[in-house]
């Protein structure tokens, strides 16, 4: 199944997130990731949802979401025509001292990630990138020992120029 990214504009009111997430749960759709935040208009929030569904079910998700009175608009954002960004914080073990630290730093340099906290035994790393790049970074860091990982859902915006 393919992951689709839906950008859902909602009225900024109490309970809206519950309405959206309860709809997914009662209709049996699985949310892979979800992020909510303000937009340029204080009365409107944006919920970005990554959902794992096929064509027909995707259409149903969109139609059912559209029935929620507080949902103003829903746009599907294909990766090819949108900017999609995820944020992670990851704490990696530095077990073998300087040699490990060097290897980790070269991985970070390659990915353009940076260290936000450094101790004798761990590095805490922050990265903001496309989901696929985040995935690649995590897999390269895994051999060193990931102690803790926190990952946002995707936030996305359609491209100004789509062709």
């Amino acid at each position, binding site marked *: 199944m393919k992951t689709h990214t839906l950008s859902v504009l909602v009225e900024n009111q109490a309970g809206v997130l519950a309405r959206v997430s309860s709809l997914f749960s009662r209709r049996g759709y699985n949310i892979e990731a979800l992020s909510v935040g303000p937009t340029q208009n204080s009365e409107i929030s944006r919920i970005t949802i990554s959902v794992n569904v096929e064509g027909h079910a995707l259409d149903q998700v969109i139609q059912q979401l559209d029935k929620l*009175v507080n*949902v103003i608009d829903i746009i599907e954002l294909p990766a090819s025509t949108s900017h999609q960004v995820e944020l992670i914080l990851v704490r990696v073990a530095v077990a073998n001292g300087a040699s490990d630290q060097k290897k980790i730093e070269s991985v970070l340099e390659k990915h353009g990630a940076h260290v936000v906290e450094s101790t004798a035994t761990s590095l805490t790393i922050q990265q903001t990138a496309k989901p696929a790049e985040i995935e690649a970074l995590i897999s390269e860091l895994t051999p060193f020992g990931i102690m803790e990982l926190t990952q946002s859902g995707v936030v996305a915006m359609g491209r100004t120029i789509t062709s």
Partner: protein
Amino acid sequence: MGEEMTGAQSLIRSLENAGVDVMFGIPGGAILPAYDPIYDSKIRHILVRHEQGAGHAATGYAQATGRVGTCIATSGPGATNLVTPIADAQMDSVPMVAITGQVPSSAIGTDAFQEADIRGITMPITKHNYLVTRAVDIPRAIAEAYHIAASGRPGAVLVDVAKDALQEKVNYEWPKNIDLPGYRDHSQPVPQSIRDAAALIAQSVRPVLYVGGGVIKANAHKELRALAELVGAPVVTTLMARGAFPDSHQLHVGMPGMHGSVAAVTSLQKADLLITLGARFDDRVTGKLSTFAPGAKVIHADIDPAEIGKNRHADVPVIGDVRLTMAQLLPAVKAEFAKSQPDLTPWWKQVEGWRTTYPVGYDVPSDGSLSPQYVIERLGKISDPDTIYTAGVGQHQMWASQFISYEKPRTWLNSGGLGTMGYAVPAAMGAKVGAPDTTVWAIDGDGCFQMTNQELVTCAINNIPIKVALINNESLGMVRQWQTLFYNQRYSNTDLHSKRVPDFAKLADAMGCIGLRCERPEDVDKTIEAAMAITDQPVVVDFNVFRDAMVWPMVAAGTSNDDIMIARELAPDWDSQEL
């Protein structure tokens, strides 16, 4: 500046401005401030005996009148008792608004006395809902609630109002307009979809009009009749659409679905085109979905875009109000027919064969006991065609749908989607309040009746003279039927022992109604006539019927409509039919 008043007064003023003329409810702590202005209001408040009764009464009122039904309850248990009727109304797309009191806003979230998060609880079972914590927000919430409940695909809306919002002083202002940026109007069909639908109709040689409850909601029975007569196709009316098209009309071939007529079920199966009008391909209609109407293209006309393709792919979706859709289809189909009109004679020959060979019927019990189908059939024959019938859920509901001829919309009210036992009595009460000059019969089972009969007290005290035909087979009959057919006649917990306990006639009497009993076929007509003669008091007739009667035809749950059985272990003799 508007007139200064309390939030409670503004709530009642808002309900008046929304056009409410009656509401069903029970007061309690959190809603109490609102009950003070109710005392002075022109709105009739009917004090029910259980909030579930208030909810179903609001639904019955809405189903009978086409207006939004209103119920009102207090916080906590008052509100949670409304959950079943709210879910029921939402499933059957009935316009209903539920008003509930909530604990003061400062106490919300503290597990206060009689606190329940009714907005959270009803989120999945309402079209929309509100929690109002400021008096100033009350009029807008009420205006929006009634607009949302009634427009588009109708549904249930709940407005939960915190007690302090009811007590607060406010300047009353009824909103001049309704601004719901996320609530779209889908009533106008796209012209291209109408043209595409008309073109498909003109190519079809085996069309069927598959008519759902949306046609009644849209007040589209006249347009339906015109379209059916123009196309000349067989018409099937679902459980929610009984009465949308006259049963006596020669184009009508019955109800489709699990207990539908052979002609209705089989015409859908063999059709080359389903002209679907305000119906939603419910599993009780389609049977096993992958084998439903395998050779048919589908025109799906519905006001809810999410219904299109939900269960069955639509070749031509027509999103719009089904009345406007049919009104526009009429000239479009006429234009197509002017070019070429298909000959439906061979199709009708087949349909007529199924209809005449397999009419819906029943066996008379050999022991001389009373046949439930006979009781219902006689009730329908003796009553005039304006009579409104409500039903509970189960065998009696299916028989009431099968053996009464419905000629007019809004004469058959039942719980189709949720299948709520106990719907009949309170819904009949609501219908009678909405249509006081019309005879209202609740056809109920002894199981259902024992869930909500307390509302007969409400009826007796408030001069709401409904009639109840109790089809008493001393059991949870439909469940018992499944146990007979699928569980080796192991009747686990379906025997209600209700032939004499309770004594329904005495119970009716105790509740201020007239109680009658009928046990012999020869007494049926005169008992019904005796009940008809009582017009100033509710009447309950306890019909003691044959308990082993079963509902036929039947498509067993999860099987194909092709496997319809006309009696136990008896399939139609397809070989002798031209298929």
